């Protein structure tokens, strides 16, 4: 905030500044518009993989075990997704020997920095399917793996059976609350039993997700990749929208301003000069750089600052100087309304009432 005497901003220096300030934001805006395609995406992907003993069976004619197919497909997807995608891995049933104090089902927590660890953990030999476990319990635990916020979250369950954990997904809904922005997919491998398919469909409906039942001839990788790519694209678009909205709000806020000027219009018979004694905005003192005295006809820009939209109170007091004596005015109070995206321009003029000195205000909104 500066208190400077109003003068005409003209001349080469002003023109140079004006031209520079016009080009520079345009270049910045161009960079900002081109930039967000990469590096601004907050996509969180977790694979919840069935490692029950039945995953050793093969679903295709080339006799490759399902767990190997899953490992290869997930690895391929992980390699094709950009490095800014955070990936995590959870399995069920969880390994019996988990690290102390840790959730054994969570093999790799969702993290952008742990892509290498993720790729190592997805090996079929490390997944080592055996036994049976509850999908319900692991889904509810998986909800806790995602960070809070509106970012896109993708939970992909890959299984070869329903494993509802004793209670049907169609009869009892999941207890835990879904994270905000979660997209849910169930990809079943060669599930033949209609009751299992129904269970998985019920679960996906509950989660507003999608269940995809692959047969032995379908490729898992070509199913997974479009899902992940679409989520990444949508998240990048969402980030762009958020950035644009933030920029729009910032621009709007920078245009939402309050500009206050004072002009001495008192006749020299009454005052040699006036001096601002106090300037309060919403009860807080506005510091003035120099205690300038204004002679008749002179003006002073008290402040020009970005303000929040709404009503604000401006309170001013001045000293009227005549023959070396100062007479304080009463406090001039103005309730001013600042509108969004507009500059409210307040001009203050000292005025003599019969028994006191006061202010009169003129307000303009542009």
């Amino acid at each position: 905030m500066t208190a400077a005497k109003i003068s005409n901003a003209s001349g080469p220096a002003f023109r140079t500044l004006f031209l520079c300030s016009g080009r520079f934001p345009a270049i910045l805006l161009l960079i900002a518009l081109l930039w967000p395609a990469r590096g601004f995406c907050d996509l969180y992907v977790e694979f919840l993989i069935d490692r029950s003993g039945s995953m050793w069976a093969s679903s295709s004619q080339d006799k490759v075990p399902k767990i190997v197919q899953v490992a290869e497909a997930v690895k391929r997807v992980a390699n094709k997704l950009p490095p800014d995608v955070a990936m995590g891995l959870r399995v069920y049933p969880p390994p019996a020997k988990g690290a102390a104090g840790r959730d054994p089902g969570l093999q790799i927590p969702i993290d952008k920095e742990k892509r290498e660890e993720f790729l190592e953990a997805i090996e079929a030999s490390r997944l080592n399917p055996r036994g049976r476990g509850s999908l319900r319990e692991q889904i509810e635990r998986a909800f806790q793996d995602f960070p809070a916020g509106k970012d896109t979250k993708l939970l992909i369950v890959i299984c070869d059976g329903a494993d509802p954990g004793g209670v049907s997904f169609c009869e009892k809904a999941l207890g835990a609350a879904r994270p905000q922005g979660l997209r849910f997919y169930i990809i079943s491998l060669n599930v033949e039993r209609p009751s299992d398919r129904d269970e998985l469909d019920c679960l996906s409906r509950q989660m507003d997700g999608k269940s995809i039942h692959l047969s032995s001839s379908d490729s898992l990788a070509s199913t997974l990749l479009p899902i992940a790519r679409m989520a990444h694209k949508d998240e990048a678009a969402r980030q762009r929208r958020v950035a644009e909205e933030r920029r729009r709000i910032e621009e709007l806020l920078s245009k939402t301003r309050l500009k206050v000027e004072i002009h001495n219009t008192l006749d020299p018979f009454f005052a040699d000069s006036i001096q601002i004694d106090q300037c309060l905005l919403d009860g807080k003192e506005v510091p003035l750089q120099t205690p300038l005295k204004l002679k008749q006809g002179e003006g002073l820009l008290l402040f020009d600052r970005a303000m929040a939209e709404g009503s604000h109170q401006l309170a001013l007091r001045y000293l009227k100087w005549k023959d070396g004596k100062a007479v304080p005015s009463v406090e001039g109070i103005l309730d001013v309304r600042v509108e969004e995206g507009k500059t409210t321009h307040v001009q203050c003029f000292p005025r003599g009432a019969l028994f006191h000195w006061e202010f009169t205000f003129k307000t303009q909104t542009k």
Partner: protein
Amino acid sequence: MLIREERRNRFQGIILVLILSGILGNLFGVFLGAVLPQGSLHDALSMSKAFGLDPPLSVDLWIVSVSIGFNIKLNSCGLLSMFLGLIFYKKA
């Protein structure tokens, strides 16, 4: 002769009335200035304006130098009082 003397007396009377009423009016203006709160009325009544030769006019003729100066200081009460004094004097 009598008429001329009467005119001269009348002129002297007017001057006297103007000076006296001016002094009284100025004093009243100062009094009001002390009594009234600060405002435009206070300033209008109590603030005085000075007229005259300031600095005095000086003429230097080598063997003699002459300085002529006068200053009249009036506030609005003094001016009003002089005006009223003149009216009363003319009617009396």
